[in-house]
């Protein structure tokens, strides 16, 4: 039995909000597998892990687990079912940009061909695990899609399993913990032993009693010698944000501008760790749990779907007619984004489809009530930042702390004037990064220019020195010749 303790978190988020959680909507029915759809779509550059290149061509047969995309970071995406590559074409995607981009379209043939990796035997070292994580395409399944192997280093001291799932409506992590607890624990343990981590913290909100019970059962049966510190958090949004979670569970404030890994802490989604456990056994990521929820769905539930399943197929799995919906939100109500083209395929980071219609209120001027500043979990001043951004004063917004905004949209939820604050900050942070990138490029160009000038000057000086030496030498010879001639004459 693994050693563990359960404790109530004694820290409380300053800021944050208590929205209606709507979790019961999708946990009433059991989690089921969906039928294999007729098409699977994989964006080449937007599957997570950076821009990629296709490893297959039209007409190639693929098996379940055949690599089809390799990204710039090394991350590999695999075919989630056996079939044939039908086409590689521009297609709509499950992505906030609402652009069309190159996608690999696979037609599954229903057969059970597999193309897995070889199972890894313990013991293995960190480098081996990293390579396996790259080949199996492990990235953050909580929605951010950050390549997991990049977080692992020998500086890490603590692993936090992010079981908070604080965003309303989402129950994918809750469901995964309930039905696949052993994989999650095993993944966490193997990762910890490889990186020499002593403590594993599980941050879980107190509205998940079933998941907590499942964790306890799994820990009682586990033979791991890691110590598990289970922290019960108040149900508050956004306690599941990485920085907030690190502070709530460990009391460490990650300094501005740096990531939690630099503070010696890794935060992983439960699904990521379960996928890691399967990857160690040789199975790359081919399926994931998706929460299908919202008042517009007839029978909301959690499903296990192959990566690349079209959204329309998932909508149909809830007995809802896709024609009856104008759009669905991918993600939750706070941080999700709307898509209208339901032929797009889900990616590894699609954790939820939310279908509900909310009346959109018109925007009125800011009355400086300060509710947004009270709601901000990072203790920023959104009213100042949005005033600066609306006035095109990006530097002033950055001074107010735009770089520290976690884009949680808690400020949106409390604003009495219905100002889309989080959208301003998302756009503002994008422009901030663009400007920083341009500035860095300009700086580098200046450095190269100055280096070039120095080099040219140096070459010119060397030339001049050589010329002078040559002249001196020839003047010397000339003088000698003159003297000799004089002596003769």
């Amino acid at each position, binding site marked *: 039995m693994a050693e563990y303790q359960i404790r109530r978190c004694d820290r409380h988020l300053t800021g944050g909000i208590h*929205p*209606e959680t709507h979790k019961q909507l999708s946990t009433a029915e059991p989690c089921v597998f969906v039928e294999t759809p007729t098409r699977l779509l994989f964006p*080449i*550059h*937007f599957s997570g892990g*950076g*821009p*990629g290149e296709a490893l297959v061509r039209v007409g190639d047969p693929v098996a379940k687990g055949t690599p089809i995309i390799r990204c710039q970071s090394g991350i590999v995406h695999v075919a989630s079912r056996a079939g044939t590559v039908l086409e590689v074409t521009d297609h709509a995607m499950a*992505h*906030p*940009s*609402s*652009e069309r*981009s190159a996608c690999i379209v696979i037609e599954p043939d229903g057969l059970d061909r597999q193309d897995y990796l070889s199972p890894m035997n313990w013991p293995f070292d960190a480098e081996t695990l990293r390579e396996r994580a790259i080949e199996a395409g492990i990235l953050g399944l909580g929605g951010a899609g950050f390549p997991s192997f990049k977080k692992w280093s020998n500086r890490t001291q603590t692993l936090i399993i992010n079981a908070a799932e604080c965003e*309303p409506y989402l129950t994918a992590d809750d469901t995964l913990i309930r039905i696949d607890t052993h994989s999650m624990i095993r993944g966490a343990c193997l990762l910890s032993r490889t990186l020499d981590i002593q403590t594993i913290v599980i941050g879980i909100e107190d509205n998940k009693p079933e998941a907590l019970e499942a964790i306890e059962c799994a820990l009682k049966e586990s033979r791991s010698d890691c110590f598990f510190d289970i922290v019960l958090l108040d149900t508050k949004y956004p306690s599941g944000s990485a920085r907030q979670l690190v502070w709530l569970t460990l009391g460490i404030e990650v300094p501005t501008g740096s990531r939690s890994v630099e503070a010696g802490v890794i935060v992983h989604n439960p699904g990521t760790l379960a996928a890691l456990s399967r990857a160690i056994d040789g199975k790359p990521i081919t399926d994931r749990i998706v929460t299908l929820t919202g008042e517009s769905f007839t029978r909301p539930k959690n499903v296990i779907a192959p990566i690349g399943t079209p959204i329309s197929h998932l909508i149909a799995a809830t007995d809802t007619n896709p024609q009856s919906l104008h759009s669905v*939100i991918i993600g939750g*109500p*706070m941080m*999700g*984004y*709307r898509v209208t083209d339901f032929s797009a395929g889900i990616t590894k980071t699609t954790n939820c489809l*939310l279908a509900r219609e*909310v009346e*959109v*209120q*018109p*925007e009125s001027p800011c009355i400086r009530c300060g509710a947004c500043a009270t709601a901000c979990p990072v203790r920023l001043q959104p009213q100042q930042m949005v005033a600066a951004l609306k006035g095109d004063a990006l530097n002033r917004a950055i001074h107010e702390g735009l770089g520290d905004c976690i884009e949680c*949209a808690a400020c*949106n*939820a*409390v604003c009495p004037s*219905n*100002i*889309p604050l*989080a*959208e*301003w900050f*998302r*756009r503002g942070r*994008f422009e901030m990064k663009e400007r920083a990138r*341009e*500035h860095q*490029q*300009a*700086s*580098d*160009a*200046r450095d*190269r*220019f100055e*280096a*070039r000038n120095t080099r040219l000057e140096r070459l010119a000086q060397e030339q001049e020195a050589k010329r002078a030496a040559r002249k001196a030498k020839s003047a010397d010879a000339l003088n000698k010749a003159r003297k000799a001639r004089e002596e003769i004459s």
Partner: protein
Amino acid sequence: MIDVLVTVGSGVIGLTVIGFAGGALLQYASKAFKVEGNPLVESIDELLPQTQCGQCGHPGCKPYAEAIAHGESINRCPPGGQTTVDRIASLLGVESLPLDADTAAADQDLVALIIEEECIGCTKCIQACPVDAIVGAAKLMHTVIVDDCTGCDLCIDPCPVDCIDMVERPKAPDYWTPIHPKVISTDRFGQIEMQHG
């Protein structure tokens, strides 16, 4: 009469003394808080795009920054665009001016592209590039490093076979921009959903 003189005189003397005291204080401050170097030139240079193209009439961005610090007009940098003119105006605390160039052309983010089939390996473009963004050697292929190219187009003229084109800077395949909130503000449907309490 005497008390009028006394009143006026005491006022004049008093104010003169205050004036001298203030002047002395300012003199001390100008010595004690003196800043070395000319940070103004550096600040202006920070705002310039570092293309080093010479379109402003100066051999590089730093010389133009120095010229601006000495009164040159601020709107002569096309690669910086109107944004840079506005920022320099804001830094100096003066009125902004319209950019002294074709704005449409200035707004484009261009890089040089060497048509490799036509390149003869003469190294004239390599010598011309102010930021060393072209790799190559005599009689060997020349190529522009896209990330280092600032789009100054100083390599175009020296090429004897005219094999260099200016093209749009290619964006990364996974480049995307979040929707601007002004779109959301007006139609309020947009891409992002709001939670209402």
